[in-house]
C-alpha cells in the first residue's frame, strides 16, 4: 500500500473508470505499465503505473485520468505530456488494481497532493511510449 493513500479519499468507481471498450495496452512488460480505453460514457481513461514494488502482492497502483476528446487528441498528437494532463485535471484518481487490472479501489486527489516522488520521472509524450518494432 502506498503510504500517503488515505481511506477517507476512497471513492466509488462504478462506471467511472472501468474500461468497457477499445482497451489498448501501450506499454507492457510482465504487466501493463500504460493502458487506456473508453468508459461507459465514451470518455478515454488513461492508467499510468506509479511503481511496481507491490506487483508480487497482486496490487498495482496507477495514476488515472479521464480525458475528454480534446485532451486525448492533444495527448495523442504530442501537444501535451502526461504530467501536463495531470496538472490540468480537476481530479486525479489513484487506482489500485490486481495484476489483471481489475479495479480494487479508487482514491481522489488534486495534483498538488501527489508527492513529487510518485509522479512520473518525465512529462512523457505519447510518441515516446508508442513505437513499433521493425521486422523483416
Amino acid at each position, binding site marked *: 500500500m502506498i503510504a500517503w493513500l488515505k481511506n477517507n479519499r476512497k471513492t466509488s468507481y462504478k462506471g467511472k473508470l472501468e474500461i468497457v471498450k477499445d482497451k489498448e495496452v501501450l*506499454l507492457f512488460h510482465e504487466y501493463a505499465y500504460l493502458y487506456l480505453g473508453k468508459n461507459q460514457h465514451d470518455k478515454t481513461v488513461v492508467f499510468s503505473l506509479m511503481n511496481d514494488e507491490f506487483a508480487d502482492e497482486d496490487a498495482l497502483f496507477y495514476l488515472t485520468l479521464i480525458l475528454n476528446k480534446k485532451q486525448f487528441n492533444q495527448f495523442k498528437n504530442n501537444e501535451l505530456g502526461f504530467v501536463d494532463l495531470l496538472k490540468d485535471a480537476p481530479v486525479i484518481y489513484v487506482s489500485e488494481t490486481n495484476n489483471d487490472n481489475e479495479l480494487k479501489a479508487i482514491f481522489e486527489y488534486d495534483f498538488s497532493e501527489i508527492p513529487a*516522488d510518485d509522479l*512520473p520521472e518525465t512529462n512523457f509524450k505519447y510518441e515516446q*511510449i508508442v513505437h513499433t518494432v521493425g521486422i523483416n
Partner: protein
Amino acid sequence: MKFKFYKEKTKCECLQDSFEDYENVYVRLARLKEANPVMKVKDFKGQRENKDAEYFKEFDCKMTCGYLGISTNIWNEESQEIVKSKFERINLILSRKMKKVLVVFKLNGNAGKFVYAPIIGKNGMPDDIYHYDFYKSDEFDFETHFNELQQIDL
C-alpha cells in the same frame, strides 16, 4: 533436467519447443536497491510462480506459461538497441524513486530451458520480438547457475 515445479502448477505444456542455452547472453529488468545493487534470487523468478495450481485454472495456457516463466530478452548486436529502448520507455513513466537496471547474464549448465515468447502489442504487431521466457529446472540454484556479467543503468 526435471521441471516438477511447473508440472505441479499446471497441465499446460509450458516447455514445448524449449531449449537450453548456455552460450548466448540475456538481460533481465531488475529493480535493485541503490545502496546495495546486487541481483538476488527474488529478482529472478516468474511473475506469479508462487501462486498455486488453483490460481492458474482460470487462465489459458498462454497466460499461465507467461506468468510462470521468467521474462528475459536476448542481448546481442541485433537486439541491444531495441531492447534497451523498451525498458527506457518504462522508466519514462515510472516515478523517480523506482530506478531500474538491466542485468546482463549467462546461465550455467542444467539451469533450465528457454522458450521463445515474442510479445504482441498494439494492433497485433510484434512489440518485443526478442523476448524469451525462462523456466528454471528443479535443480536450479541461483548462486551456481546465474552468471551476472554487467548492469546497465536505464
